[in-house]
């Protein structure tokens, strides 16, 4: 007789405002089984987990389709607390520990052991004092289950990141009811040894009967830990496979899916041997996109792509080079070092930047299109200004004629759809706003153009136009372009070489025509071997 699965998802679907993010997802999970869940960003993993966990964001946007069956009973959680009560525990990517609390206090947060007292009957349980020895013993027990040795009195703020992850898991274990444990990229911040200890601990928990859903981008770990693998792509289950029989290469191919289109336009631009941008030992303190140690060279006339999963640091690289976030290391442009942390220095050296934060950093939303286009040129290069007669350059005024001429030209060449140069930027559609940003960068006549997420939030037609514009600009002026994008396909269609960033480092650099699965493997933390990497950095492969 087949065992009744502990957790069963039946035909789960979800739409956000008419945008389908999950379709017909079904799988089941037995006691003591470890399921690896893999997929690219936007494949629907987080939405699936949010549904399972009863997050308010799901019910707030119209609920979901299908059924979740836990232990033979259909459940529909109203809040994460219902999920916890039903025995579903979740360890999030970002730490949720109270920094000044000890390990024991954090593990038992809001589930403390209390001493009984009379005040409890008069007021509430909250006036009972804490039973510290009891708490310590309980916490020590939970930590011991994991097979690690962490003092229960260690303060969370003073722990290495690896410890914090274990404390989070110990917290879920301490809930006596926890039957399903969801871990969202638990090993992302761990060293190899720590990750190994964690995997051992998870195996031990599973042997004790807890079912585990393990989300990770590291395919090696998925393969060595999990019993089964579920691959999601674009909201659909692509594969539900036995972990032992699937090879890492297979999994990567299932994840990335799409095959390279062979109709890639032939490039007319020339790439010289001269190195335009050279980056060494770069670190950038960009919140959520920390760059730890990046090194690469970009050749003059090249279109260089930077890809990788969200949060790995790809956006930090251009933002750090432009001086928008605290950064260190060496960045040289045509052999001369660029001073970091000072956007003005980067602009002076002939770098132009199109930010991923179009509405925040990219545009002066409330101002006219023509002012937006010429603003940086005016500030940095003293263009679009005229001196007063007699006074010479002592007092300079805006040169409206020059501004009009410049913006008319870009409105025409980039097909910016607007009522005229005087329209305010806030009134434009996303695609047209992006074109204004590009016009602003082009108007600087840069030596090096850094562009982040050029097609984010714009419709398909506009996407094509933006990419074509970049390609044309590169061909006509020989401008070196650095594109950072979450969309690998886009990078592969427009770039010469693509670097994949993982955990704040360059995981590898490949020619854009390499097969998709090689990029997929890099994204999954399968770093190219050292020799190949050296070659790739300098581009002499």
């Amino acid at each position, binding site marked *: 007789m087949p065992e009744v699965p502990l957790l069963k998802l039946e035909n789960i679907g979800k739409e956000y405002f008419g945008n389908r993010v999950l379709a017909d997802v079904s799988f089941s999970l037995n006691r003591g089984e470890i399921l690896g869940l893999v997929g690219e960003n936007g494949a629907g993993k987080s939405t699936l987990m949010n549904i399972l966990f009863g997050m308010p964001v799901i019910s707030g946007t119209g609920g979901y389709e299908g059924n979740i069956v836990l232990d033979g009973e259909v459940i529909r959680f109203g809040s994460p607390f219902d999920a916890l009560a039903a025995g579903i525990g979740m360890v999030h990517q970002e730490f949720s520990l109270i920094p000044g609390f000890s390990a024991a206090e954090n593990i038992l947060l*809001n589930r403390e052991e209390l001493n009984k007292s009379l005040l409890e009957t008069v007021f509430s349980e909250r006036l009972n004092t804490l039973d510290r020895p009891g708490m310590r013993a309980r916490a020590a027990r939970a930590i011991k289950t994991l*097979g*690690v040795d962490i003092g229960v009195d260690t303060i969370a703020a*003073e*722990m*290495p990141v690896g410890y914090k992850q274990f404390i989070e898991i110990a917290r879920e274990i301490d809930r006596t009811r926890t039957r399903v444990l969801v871990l969202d990229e638990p090993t992302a911040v761990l060293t190899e040894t720590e990750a190994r200890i964690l995997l051992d601990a998870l195996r031990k928990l599973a042997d004790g009967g807890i079912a585990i859903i393990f989300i990770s981008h590291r395919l090696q770990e998925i393969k060595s830990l999990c019993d089964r693998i579920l691959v999601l792509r674009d909201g659909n289950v692509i594969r539900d496979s036995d972990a032992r029989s699937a090879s890492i290469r297979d999994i990567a191919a299932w994840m990335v899916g799409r095959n390279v289109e062979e109709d890639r336009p032939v490039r007319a631009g020339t790439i010289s041997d001269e190195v335009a941008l050279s980056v060494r030992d770069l670190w950038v303190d960009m919140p959520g996109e920390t760059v*730890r140690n990046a090194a690469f060279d970009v050749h003059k006339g090249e279109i260089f792509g930077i890809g990788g999963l969200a949060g790995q640091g790809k956006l930090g690289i251009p933002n750090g080079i432009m001086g928008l976030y605290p950064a260190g290391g060496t960045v040289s442009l045509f052999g001369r070092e660029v001073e970091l942390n000072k956007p003005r220095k980067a602009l002076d050296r002939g770098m132009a930047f199109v930010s991923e934060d179009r509405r925040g950093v990219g545009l002066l939303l409330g101002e006219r299109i023509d002012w937006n286009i010429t603003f940086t040129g005016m500030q940095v290069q003293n263009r679009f200004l005229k001196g007063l007669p007699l006074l010479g350059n002592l007092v300079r005024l805006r040169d409206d004629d020059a501004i009009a001429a410049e913006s008319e030209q870009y409105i025409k060449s980039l097909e910016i759809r607007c009522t005229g140069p005087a329209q305010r930027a806030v009134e434009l559609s996303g695609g047209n706003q992006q074109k204004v940003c590009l016009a602003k960068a082009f108007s600087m006549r840069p030596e090096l153009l850094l562009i982040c997420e050029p097609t984010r939030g714009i419709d398909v037609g506009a996407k094509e136009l933006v990419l074509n514009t970049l390609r044309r600009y590169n061909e006509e002026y020989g401008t070196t372009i650095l594109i950072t994008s979450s969309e690998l396909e886009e990078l592969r269609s427009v770039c010469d070489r693509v670097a994949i960033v993982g955990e*704040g480092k360059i995981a590898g650099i490949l020619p854009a025509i390499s097969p998709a699965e090689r990029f997929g493997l890099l994204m999954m933390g399968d770093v190219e071997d050292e020799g190949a990497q050296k070659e790739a950095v300098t581009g002499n492969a």
Partner: protein
Amino acid sequence: MSRLDRGPDKKRNRGVGSLLADYAVPVIFIVISVVAIPLSDFSATYLIQELLVRIGRNSFLILSLLIPIMAGMGLNFGMVLGAMAGQIGLIFVSDWAVVGIPGIVLAMIIGTPVAVALGILCGEVLNRAKGQEMVTSYILGFFINGVYQLFVLYFMGWLIPISNPALVLSRGHGIRNAISLTGIRMVLDRLIPLQVGTVTIPVATYLVIAAFCFFILWFRKTKLGQDMRAIGQDMAVADSAGIPVNRTRVIAIVISTVLACYGQIIFLQNMGTLNTYNSHDQAGMFSIAALLIGGASVSRAGIGNVFLGVVLFHLMFIVAPKAGRNLMGEAQIGEYFRVFVSYGIIALALVLHAWKRLRDRAEARRSLRGPAGKE
């Protein structure tokens, strides 16, 4: 059992500059006192007597600030609300001529519901202004001051019967500017008389303060206290652990407001006169200044900070006018100095707090960096 191969991060090496910044305020005051005490020519017994009186008078008020700090709500400028509640209690007690300890207890009984109501109001407002608690509670104090004046200046003697003509303004309604609290003057201080040489010690007041200290120590060990600490350090995490954040924050403010009400009653029984329209104003500012001078910060304060602060702040109050006169020939300089210093210290503490937060955040980010970031 496997041991993780990475030891705990090295203790943060903050250097002398940072350490000095943490304790800058008390150090400055110790230096000022060391210079000013000899200049003032006061005798040791006089200084000790004055200090003992002022510690008894002010400590309770300052202690009432501790619980909101624990709950991460910063310095509760809204404590003036409690002070007003206490004063309303005192006005009624004076009108009804209830004297002695029963008078004080009755004033507290009348003040408590008023303080609870004001505390709930204040807590609810602050829950809608998370992250801006201090400036919000400060301005809320001004607003409630207006309501208080409306009651005391217009309603009392008109809508609210006040029988004692000595309390009422000559026009027939409204309370006089200054009320002499003869019935309860120093009754708590003198309840248990103790004389050591020429120095009188207000034993009963100190016992009340000691009881309050034990209350705080006990409170920290309760589940409610633990929840407040959790909320104070990370509201989002506390919320996701199921701690009722908003309710707990309201409780913290209510406790603080009620205790400030009692504190103001103790303060005024020692003073013996109630300045109907001013007494509460100073209560907040001077208590907060004293706490900060004791080395507390916006996010961290303990009982030790209260007593160190009250001693240093009031030592300066006592010696500064005399030292000013001996040095400059003008006593006013001392009075000027104390107001100047109160505001200056609060401003300094706020700046230091913001700076420390930035520094901690940068440090936390730094730990995420790899080998390239370790310079």
